[in-house]
């Protein structure tokens, strides 16, 4: 049993932290998220080519640093600290995770492209009617010769406007909510018949509604088995959920630190408001939530390799705890800042917005508590 980081892991964190503090200050971020494209592509390129950061979680055989879920968590936490909108989660954690799980020619072809920063992959899994149920799919992929024809509507696909590729869940069989019949495809984002409606998200990113209208896709776009893809989807979504917990830890830490700093400057009744015990105790409660989010992220990382039921229970416990903590820390950061907290001016409000979206990402507190109970507390 060991809860320490290796030298390489410390180096990844330090390198990324330095890079982001140089390139990702709040004003710069606001400038590029409000630009037409909503991002600065040079940052992604630098992450890949100057820092080698996009390879941290990939095998050395593919040109990576040989890491995995813990490296992903380190990167996501650092991105959380700057409310980074870089598409690391869908590209490296999710699509990269699926490719690693599937292996073979598809991963040999694609992983080097991810590491080099050439590929940005958006994860088109959610549908308007499906809520958090990964199997609730109306999107279909019908066999057509050697390939498939894709039809359907995917909702709120983060990073899709920037994507070179899409990772898509679709039905190759079964009824709308069956576990059987789910397949996973990695396709070119610009195939004929893909219609996108792009928009900004409340937390500073960009997303799309995606409509597949008789999109012809090649047979080798299928990742894993046809119709047996749900366990793989559940696995990569669990990996993504833990990564989002890590991001939340970074976001929450900054919300807490920003609040500490603000209360020591802001004076009322002639003294810094940090002197008031009622605020001190609240900031202690926020601190405890940050620490517990960090602990739950580590638990999630360490349990990702367990058999599916144990893995899912651990991930749900982590996400449920982190969702509550993110809400508590975010709301109290705003409350403690008072009026200025509810303006766009300070960074704190933007951290709060990201924290709020993380609460529901890959399942709300209630969703994960339900899943946890089904797995652990059967009566």
């Amino acid at each position: 049993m060991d809860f320490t980081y290796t030298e390489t892991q410390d180096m990844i964190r330090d390198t990324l932290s330095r890079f982001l503090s140089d390139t990702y200050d709040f004003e710069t971020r606001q400038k590029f998220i409000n630009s037409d494209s909503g991002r600065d592509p040079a940052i992604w390129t630098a992450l890949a080519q100057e820092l080698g950061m996009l390879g941290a979680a990939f095998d050395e055989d593919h040109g990576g640093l040989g890491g995995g879920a813990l490296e992903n968590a380190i990167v996501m936490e650092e991105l959380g600290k700057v409310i980074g909108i870089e598409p690391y989660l869908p590209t490296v954690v999710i699509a990269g995770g699926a490719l690693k799980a599937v292996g073979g020619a598809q991963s040999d072809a694609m992983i080097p492209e991810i590491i080099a920063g050439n590929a940005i992959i958006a994860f088109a899994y959610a549908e308007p009617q499906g809520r958090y149920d990964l199997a609730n799919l109306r999107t279909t992929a019908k066999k057509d010769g050697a390939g498939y024809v894709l039809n359907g509507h995917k909702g709120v696909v983060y990073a899709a406007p920037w994507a070179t590729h899409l990772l898509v869940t679709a039905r190759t069989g079964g009824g709308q909510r069956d576990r059987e019949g789910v397949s996973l495809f990695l396709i070119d984002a610009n195939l004929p018949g893909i219609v996108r409606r792009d928009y900004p998200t409340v937390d500073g990113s960009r997303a799309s509604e995606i409509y597949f209208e008789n999109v012809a896709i090649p047979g080798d776009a299928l990742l894993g088995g046809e119709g047996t893809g749900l366990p793989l989807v559940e696995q990569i979504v669990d990996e993504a959920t833990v990564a989002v917990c890590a991001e939340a830890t970074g976001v929450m830490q900054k919300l807490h630190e920003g609040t500490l700093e603000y209360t020591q400057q802001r004076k009322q009744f002639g003294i810094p408001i940090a002197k008031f015990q009622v605020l001190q105790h609240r900031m202690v409660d926020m601190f405890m939530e940050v620490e517990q989010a960090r602990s739950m992220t580590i638990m999630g990382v360490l349990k990702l390799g367990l058999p599916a039921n144990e893995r899912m229970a651990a991930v749900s416990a982590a996400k449920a705890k982190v969702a509550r903590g993110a809400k508590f820390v975010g709301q109290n950061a705003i409350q403690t800042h008072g009026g200025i907290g509810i303006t766009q001016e300070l960074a704190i409000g933007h951290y709060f917005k990201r924290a709020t979206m993380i609460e529901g990402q890959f399942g709300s507190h209630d969703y994960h508590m339900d899943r946890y109970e089904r797995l652990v507390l059967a009566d």
Partner: protein
Amino acid sequence: MDMEFSPEDLAFQQEVRDFIAENYPAELREKQDEGEEMSKEDFLVWHKILHKKGWIAPAWPVEYGGTGWTPTQRFIWSEETARADCIRLMPFGLAMVGPVIYTFGTPEQKAHFLPRILSGEDWWCQGYSEPGSGSDLASLRTTAVRDGDDYIVNGQKTWTTLAQHADWGFFLVRTDKDAKQQEGISFLLIDMKSPGITVRPIITLGGEHEVNEVWLEDVRVPVANRVYEENKGWTCAKFLLAHERTGIAGVAASKRGIEKVKAIARTEVDGDKPLLANAFFKRKVAELEVDLAALEFTELRSLAGPNAGRGPGPESSLLKIKGSEIQQRLTELSLEAVGHYGAPYFRGFGEGDNEHPIGPDYAHRAAPTYFNMRKTTIYGGSNEIQRNIIAKMVLGL
């Protein structure tokens, strides 16, 4: 980073399981299962078995009788003893005054007291709180005045846990009335059989005699029984409080506690289903498990993380706050789970009394335990004081 047990750790785990299975007294197990109050002898019987085995003080340095276990082995030990529902060991000697003595004591004090703590020969109690000094412990007014080779001690202590059993007590006393509060305090070891000591019971909400008032009237204490320098007792007190807080997370015991609550909720019937099928009750159990996992991994990070080995810091206040809240929620759920049969007041078996108490065994102590465990957020520095400590020492406010 990993949470695997090495082959050596797994072998150790098996050794611990076998040892407990072969050596835990059956009569004690029976008494625990029936929910009876534990006597001094009950606490000591397991203590003495562990002492004989050399496993009584895993946290102590080897030179003083510790086991030399790795943090992982200590984790396994606490898990296994909780899993087997072994009776808790009294902390006053092993976890409190023992570490103070081996850290600050004289060679004579170490040689005399430490072996007797390990063997269980001396039962210790803690003379800290006073009627006027609770959270503001440094305002304490019990005085010790030098008279040749002795101090003459006068004052009143309160909330002295199990002082009725105690052979010795460690006391904070004021040796300099003119110094700033924390700077005039000394740490004395006092023989509880000394003339001038009176112990009076305080009966708590569950009906237990667990705590006491201790009156000290012209009690003579040899100067040789002062630990560390005169007027430097606060250093020992702070050291001890930080130590007290780490054990207080109680993760392994709370895990066991959750299993007990679940067992009750599978037995109790709500409508035509077990109580555990009630969505509201189930959610409360699930929330508790999730919070306990967060506490467990926070403790593991401090035991086996980058800061391991630095000793308990102010972060241990977090473990105390969250650990005590969880212990209380467990007792709330137990009481809620037993329904009507929380009400009958079971006073324990009297002499020759062999009528079975009212209600199921698991209900006998549900209410008294709930009442009793309100103490956990009050003792060892109330949770409000713990927040003050974090605010000052960790957040720099």
